[in-house]
């Protein structure tokens, strides 16, 4: 059905051009090697690009050099993602081979590429295949790099043996005898206590600490990293090492793990339990046990009891080991690598205990620090996280340069990558960094935690890709960042903190944002602006910590105002956060830190006799468990622990109260100022009767994820050419064609309805902030939200056609108040027309999923398989979640969260009925009687606007609803336009009888719908006059609703706890969807095929970078008038 050409590119014509690409990859000459993608692609048409792609594909298959292959992968990904789609018409939509999709999900990227190239040779270049090839090459590149780093981690000398020791009897480590000797008087075993600082980086030279970059471009991998002790300003008396690890021998042959900061404890009896990372909150401690060699990675799956291993380690069959972690209340997302340094701290104490580090107590020497760094890297990769190579900097002391190293013949990386996995650390000792300079730094810099907890992973992937393809702007920015790095080091050494601040600011506003615009956000910008406004010349500059801003950040002030600025900063941060918490994902209130450079590095002391005491939090976790036992059942050591806790309670009675709170059940009381879940359910129109009905149907199996699907006998076919109106750029229309639309717009007959009742769970992984208010991109110099963008488009339409466009935002229980306040406080952004808020009138209560639905969700619906280690973690998490569902009660109400996260919107179908119920449509028609058409669209369909041509086609068709569809690309999953049993309609992805059917559909629904108001009312059995009759409206809605299917879905919901900690739970909810209106026989529907930039949806922040690079942002900008 598409009109693709099947031309085979004339390779000879492009010989010289092709050579430039491969020469760029293999050349040792910097000027050739660093040629940018843009310069290589200049002047290439579709045939030229295909010829280059063909050659690069051959090259990547033949090349034995890892980095040559990977550069080819990323160049190919860029060609198919950014260059080729612009060179072929939109009408070349094409179909995606299902087989290729399956290969991609199964991480068989090479097979996927082969299938797609075969399909391309038959279909010709299409947007669908191009998008899939881009994804496959990109992921193949990432996979190849990850495999290489993992291999390098394993081949570091000192790590290899752990991959060979697979049975406890072969274990070559022994516990230090000092730890095995109980105190003569108390009988307590000594406790080894390791204390480690965290790291702060002044510059990472454009994320050059990503392993891939350091290994390919060691010359550019430079970080200035400081080990710091922290205290929370106003809470702690002085800074101290933020992470601690405790190790002792216990009188039972088990491995006991305790995380005092996460309140978790477990006793492991089997070796395999150590590899179950996601079962509980003890994944980091388990990672440390593995990376330190106590439980070597080769023992995974050995099915031996842990007592056998402990027998070898301790030389006794009745002794075990206890490992305790403690983070001194530093929140998650601090960008100070707390987790990695805690991992390093745990590894250090374990390696000391087993003689792998020379000294049991005191500091570490350089060789030991290097070893622990290597093990921490190993631990991160085993845990599936893979942080940067500078992250374990807290194990080292002071301020140091950490730099990439070119691999030499004795390195395992030699001949594979240009750089070594392990960087070189150069500590800036007193002679290079005088004491006065450090003091000046501490007198000026204020470190804070902004409260935002964000995933930095997508940013690291974007950086890697941009580096490998040498995107022009980003490559120049990288050079600039490297130059700034030296200035930062120089300023610090000279003690010129004002210059240092100006360089770190320049780094942030210049190269960092050029490489990744998303490293800043509205919150950060607002804070910087307020600093400038309030402190003028006494505000010296900004420091971004780690991968992105919003979490850990630094502000430099004139030392003379340091104290006052610190108080002001804390107050302002909290106020600013509160004003934005509906829009941006904050995990907690911001805090200000006191910090001090740590000059010792990680160090350990041995506590013996009466001093051999675990931290406070330990007894709080263990004591309730011990108290529940009979005294005679307690071991001697447990009794001594209880006596110790008793002593603590005597000195600190609040501890006893705390213990009672832990033991006795608590009634849940809503915090003052917030209403309970029951109150909110009442307020937002919860239908208990319907809820109970759905619950019983879920439990009986009549409703479930598998029941969402249409019967298997359903015949699903793709649409034919005359089933839709093609408005894509491949088909030209004259100006006259758009005339009816222009007239309607000029006459004020059209309004916009933006669906914004949902929070957009994917946008913040279920954080519950309002996506519509998220200031996601800087347009015309300012970060602007989805809502502001939609108003800006309507403003432009109003100006162009001389008639203000009424704009409706539908809201829900989570979004109504925030949107109202947002629009009010910004005076509706000066919108010239009227805007309306249509408040949702229905809400559901989420339920705990059934194991049956969870298993269906995980196993029967397509999921991207993860990297091997991450996949293990995911599977372990699945088992834990299924267990949670059983314990919490399958199908029971989900109430163990804040009320807003327990309720759910009941699907976007209800948003138009809500406009009828709450009187918004009635008011709209009263205000604008000539109104005939509504354009309904999703909050994330950024390119949707009142396009006169599309409107004309809708009007001419005489349809009640005209749905806009776009050519399907690989990311467009979720149904589409289909011929179902002979009737054209939209089909939801979850209703597809099988996943394969979706791949036979050319078009994906953008959800944008042109609505004929009177015909729609007619479909409801209403007319304009009856809108004033609530009873008639209610009956009409119920009658129509009953004819539409109810879908059961699983949504991820975040539960926040502790200091910035978040858990994600999959919960069940039901919904009715707008696209199913196309199934009703009395509703006449038309379908309009539109260009991708108009119909694509912005679901995930990870899409933003590609959205800018492929020109979509520029397309949107020209639709707006600010």
């Amino acid at each position, binding site marked *: 059905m598409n009109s693709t050409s099947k031309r085979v590119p004339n390779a000879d014509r492009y010989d010289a051009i092709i050579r430039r690409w491969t020469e760029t990859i293999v050349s040792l000459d910097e000027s050739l090697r660093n040629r940018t993608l843009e310069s290589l692609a200049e002047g290439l048409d579709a045939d030229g690009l295909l010829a280059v792609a063909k050659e690069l594909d051959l090259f990547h298959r033949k090349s034995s050099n890892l980095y040559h292959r990977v550069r080819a992968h990323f160049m190919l990904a860029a060609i198919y993602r950014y260059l080729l789609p612009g060179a072929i018409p939109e009408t070349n939509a094409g179909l995606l081979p299902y087989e290729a999709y399956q290969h991609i999900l199964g991480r068989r990227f090479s097979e996927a590429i082969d299938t797609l190239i075969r399909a391309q040779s038959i279909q010709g270049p299409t947007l669908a295949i191009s998008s899939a090839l881009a994804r496959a090459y990109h992921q193949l590149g990432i996979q190849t790099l990850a495999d290489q780093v993992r291999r390098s981690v394993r081949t570091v*000398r000192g790590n*290899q*043996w752990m991959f*060979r020791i697979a049975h406890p009897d*072969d*274990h*070559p*480590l022994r516990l230090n005898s000092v730890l095995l000797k109980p105190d003569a008087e108390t009988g307590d075993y000594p406790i080894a206590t390791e204390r480690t600082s965290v790291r702060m980086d002044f510059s990472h030279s454009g994320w050059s600490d990503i392993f891939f970059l350091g290994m390919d471009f060691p010359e550019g991998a430079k970080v200035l990293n400081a080990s710091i002790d922290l205290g929370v300003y106003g809470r702690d008396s002085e800074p101290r090492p933020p992470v601690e690890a405790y190790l002792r021998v216990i009188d039972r042959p088990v491995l006991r793990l305790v995380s005092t900061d996460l309140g978790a404890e477990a006793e492991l009896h089997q070796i395999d339990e150590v590899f179950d990372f996601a079962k509980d909150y003890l994944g980091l401690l388990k990672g440390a046990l593995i990376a330190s060699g106590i439980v070597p990675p080769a023992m995974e799956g050995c099915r031996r009891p842990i007592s056998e291993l402990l027998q070898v380690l301790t030389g006794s069959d009745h002794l075990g080991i206890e490992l305790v972690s403690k983070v001194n209340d530093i929140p998650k997302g601090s960008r100070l690598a707390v987790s990695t340094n805690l991992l390093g701290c745990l590894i250090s104490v374990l390696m000391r205990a087993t003689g*792998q580090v020379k000294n049991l107590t005191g500091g570490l020497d350089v060789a030991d620090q290097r070893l622990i760094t290597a093990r921490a890297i190993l631990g991160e990769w085993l845990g599936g996280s893979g942080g940067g190579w500078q992250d374990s900097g807290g194990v080292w002391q002071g301020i140091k340069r950490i730099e990439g190293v070119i691999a030499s013949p004795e390195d395992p990386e030699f001949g594979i990558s240009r750089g070594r996995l392990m960087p070189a650390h150069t500590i800036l000792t007193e002679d290079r960094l005088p004491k006065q300079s450090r003091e000046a730094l501490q007198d000026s810099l204020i470190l804070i935690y902004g409260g935002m907890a964000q995933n930095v992973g997508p940013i690291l992937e974007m950086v890697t890709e941009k580096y490998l393809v040498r995107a022009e702007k980003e490559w120049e920015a990288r050079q600039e960042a490297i130059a700034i790095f030296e200035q930062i080091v120089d300023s610090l050494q000279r003690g010129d903190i004002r210059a240092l601040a100006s360089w770190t600011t320049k780094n942030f506003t210049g190269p960092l944002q050029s490489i990744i615009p998303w490293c800043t956000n509205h919150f950060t910008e607002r804070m910087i602006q307020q600093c400038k406004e309030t402190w003028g010349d006494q505000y010296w500059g900004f420091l971004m910590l780690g991968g992105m801003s919003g979490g850990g950040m630094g502000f430099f002030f004139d030392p003379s105002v340091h104290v006052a600025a610190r108080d002001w900063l804390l107050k302002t941060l909290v106020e600013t956060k509160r004003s934005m918490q509906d829009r941006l994902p904050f995990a907690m209130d911001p805090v200000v830190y006191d910090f001090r450079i740590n000059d010792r590095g990680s160090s350990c002391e041995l506590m013996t006799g009466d001093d051999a005491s675990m931290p406070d939090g330990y007894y709080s976790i263990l004591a309730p468990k011990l108290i529940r036992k009979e005294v005679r059942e307690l071991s001697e050591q447990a009794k001594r622990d209880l006596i110790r806790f008793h002593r603590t309670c005597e000195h600190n009675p609040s501890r006893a109260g705390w213990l009672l709170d832990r033991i006795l059940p608590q009634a849940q009381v809503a915090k003052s100022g917030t209403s309970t879940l029951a109150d909110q359910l009442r307020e937002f129109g919860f239908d208990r009767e319907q809820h109970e009905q759905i619950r019983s149907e879920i439990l009986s199996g009549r409703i479930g994820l598998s029941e969402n699907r249409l019967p298997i006998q359903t015949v699903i076919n793709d649409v034919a050419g005359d089933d839709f109106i093609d408005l894509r750029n491949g088909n030209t229309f004259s100006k006259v064609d758009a005339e009816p639309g222009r007239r309607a717009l000029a006459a004020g007959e059209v309004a916009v309805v933006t669906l914004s009742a949902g929070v957009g769970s994917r946008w913040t992984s279920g954080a519950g902030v309002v996506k519509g208010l998220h200031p996601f991109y800087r347009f015309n110099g300012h970060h602007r939200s989805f809502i502001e963008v939609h108003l800006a488009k309507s403003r432009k339409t109003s100006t162009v056609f001389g008639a203000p466009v009424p704009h409706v935002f539908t809201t829900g229980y989570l979004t109504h108040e925030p949107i109202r306040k947002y629009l009010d406080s910004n005076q509706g952004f000066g919108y010239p027309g009227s805007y309306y808020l249509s408040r949702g009138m229905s809400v559901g209560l989420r339920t705990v999923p059934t194991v049956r639905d969870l298993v269906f969700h995980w196993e029967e619906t397509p999921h991207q398989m993860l990297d091997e280690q991450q996949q293990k973690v995911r599977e372990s998490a699945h088992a834990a979640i299924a267990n949670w569902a059983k314990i919490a009660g399958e199908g029971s109400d989900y109430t163990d969260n804040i009320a807003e996260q327990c309720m759910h919107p009941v699907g976007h179908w209800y948003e138009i009925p809500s406009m009828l119920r709450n009187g918004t449509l009635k008011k709209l028609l009263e205000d604008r009687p000539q109104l005939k058409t509504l354009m309904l669209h999703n909050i994330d369909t950024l390119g949707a606007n009142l396009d006169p041509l599309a409107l004309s086609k809708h009007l001419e068709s005489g349809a009640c609803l005209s749905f806009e569809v776009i050519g399907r690309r690989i990311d467009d999953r979720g149904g589409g336009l289909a011929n179902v049993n002979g009737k054209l309609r939209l089909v939801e992805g979850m209703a597809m009888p099988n996943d394969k059917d979706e791949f036979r559909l050319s078009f994906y629904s953008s959800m944008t719908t042109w609505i004929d108001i009177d015909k729609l009312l007619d479909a409801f059995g209403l007319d304009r006059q009856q809108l004033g009759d609530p009873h008639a409206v209610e009956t009409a809605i119920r009658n129509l609703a009953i004819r539409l299917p109810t879908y059961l879905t699983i949504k991820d919901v975040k539960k926040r706890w502790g200091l910035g900690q978040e858990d994600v739970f999959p919960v069940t909810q039901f919904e009715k969807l707008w696209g199913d209106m196309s199934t009703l026989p009395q509703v006449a529907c038309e379908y309009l095929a539109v260009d991708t930039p108009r119909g694509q949806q912005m679901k995930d922040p990870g899409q933003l970078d590609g959205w800018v690079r492929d020109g979509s942002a520029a397309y949107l900008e020209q639709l707006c008038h600010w």
Partner: protein
Amino acid sequence: MIIKKAVVTAAGPGQSSLPLQRLVDRDGVEKTALEMIIEEIVSAGIDSIAMVLSPGSEEAFREAAGNYIERLTFVTQREATGYGQAICCAKDFIAGEPFLHLVGDHLYLSKQARKCAQQLVQIASTNDCIVSAVQATRENMLPFFGTIGGLRVPQEERLYEVKRVVEKPTPTLAEQELTVAGFRSGTYLCFFGMHVLTPSVIGTLERLIADRKKPVPLADALHELASRQRYLAYEIDGQRYNIGVKYGLLNTQLALSLNGQDRDRILTQLVELLGTQK
């Protein structure tokens, strides 16, 4: 270098009764472990042997020495102050001469006509320096042995120039500093329990003991000497058996019998034994 003396240390905790254990040798003759150790030494042409013992164990050793009693000199280590100090106790006996040193809890089984001690003494005599007998050992046994790192001596089949010695290294350290070219990953050259030492070892041990004021393993002194003088390691063509560990005696006896004249008889008995097991 002519080696005329030997020192056997048997003063460690739990070692005093080991040489008294009775075994059947390859020729089917029943004798004590001590007699077998002495025969090993005598085969190398040495007939003056010092036994370093813990207090009170001399009488039992005299009895176990059988016909070799005339060749023995008994030296008492008054306190259990470590392996290094035990060797130092034989200082007067050594009297400034090189000597063969064996540990009292090991028995040796050569794979060739020359016994293990014979092989070692010959190499030491030829090279005129300290030589430690070593054996390729899997990394899981590292907690039991001193381990060397070094380079192969050119043109020599089993001889190594020692650069580093570590007593009971962790596998992490072994992998970083003790790998020897030509051996598979996870295999290291560990002590065989047999050395030819020079008087310089005694001097070094005494100094280290004085400095550290705590027990010093022989490996530490050898490590120091490796940087000062030529020190070789010889991969013996034979096996060592530790009779001091659990089932060590049984294992040693099996090895002796399966390599001796009663091999078939023992094999038959083993098969019968296995056949009657449920």
